[in-house]
């Protein structure tokens, strides 16, 4: 039987790689990919805890559905902002986005 700890270690590895991606990338779209990985790691943890808590409830699944909805909303708004950034300063490098003037 696969234990809860194995799932948590997989989730922790996905989280750390997503964090590494967010910290090292300069391209805004690549940073968005790292954030998606981090949200997926949280989802794995929610479902694994729900599976192994010994109760016949599915509240963890509901939380995961909400996380997926929030991830979709976040991706849509972030890409709208990135496209606007590209239109204004001509690149999607987050180091170039330093001015507050529109």
């Amino acid at each position: 039987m696969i234990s809860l700890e194995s799932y948590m270690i997989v989730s922790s590895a996905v989280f750390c790689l997503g964090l590494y991606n967010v910290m090292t990338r300069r391209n805004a779209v690549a940073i968005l990919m790292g954030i998606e990985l981090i949200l997926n790691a949280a989802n794995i943890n929610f479902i694994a805890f729900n599976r192994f808590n010994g109760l016949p409830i599915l509240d963890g699944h509901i939380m995961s559905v909400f996380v997926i909805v929030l991830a979709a909303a976040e991706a849509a708004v972030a890409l709208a902002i990135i496209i606007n950034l590209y239109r204004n300063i001509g690149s999607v490098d987050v180091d170039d986005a330093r001015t507050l003037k529109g």
Partner: protein
Amino acid sequence: MSEIVFYIISSLIFLSCVGVCTSRNLVHSAVCLFFALFLIAGLYIMLYADFLAAVQVIVYVGGILVLIIFGVMLTNRLEKPSIDISSFNQLTAALLCIFLFGIQCYAILNGNWVNVDYPPTENTSLEIGRLILSKHLLPFEIISILLLGVLIGAATIARKKR
């Protein structure tokens, strides 16, 4: 049998995530992200979350990933031959992440977790639908309003200014 499948899926998830982090080409990163999300859906099936695996494939692979690839295509100049991306601070970030992973592994392996193998729910979509419309009705309504706001907001932000 299921252990072997779990280890195969987990190592492939790890490799795909490493590919997302290390690939120099942004489109390759997006393809690696596709594999990672798809394999995580496989992990959900191993956890008996069939509804969530379907939602993961539909929303992440079918929606968010297409959106991300659109973002890659729309925000790169066509004069440049390859859509390269630069990375920085790699050593510091790698050390920090390995340190964090070590702490997390230590906490996971020494924690006192409830680890009961309860027989899985027969029909998770039935139970999820029941819970959404009874116990979690208020968050459900709030999130539908949020989705409406995101729909209008994203269209407004991305519109061409004149």
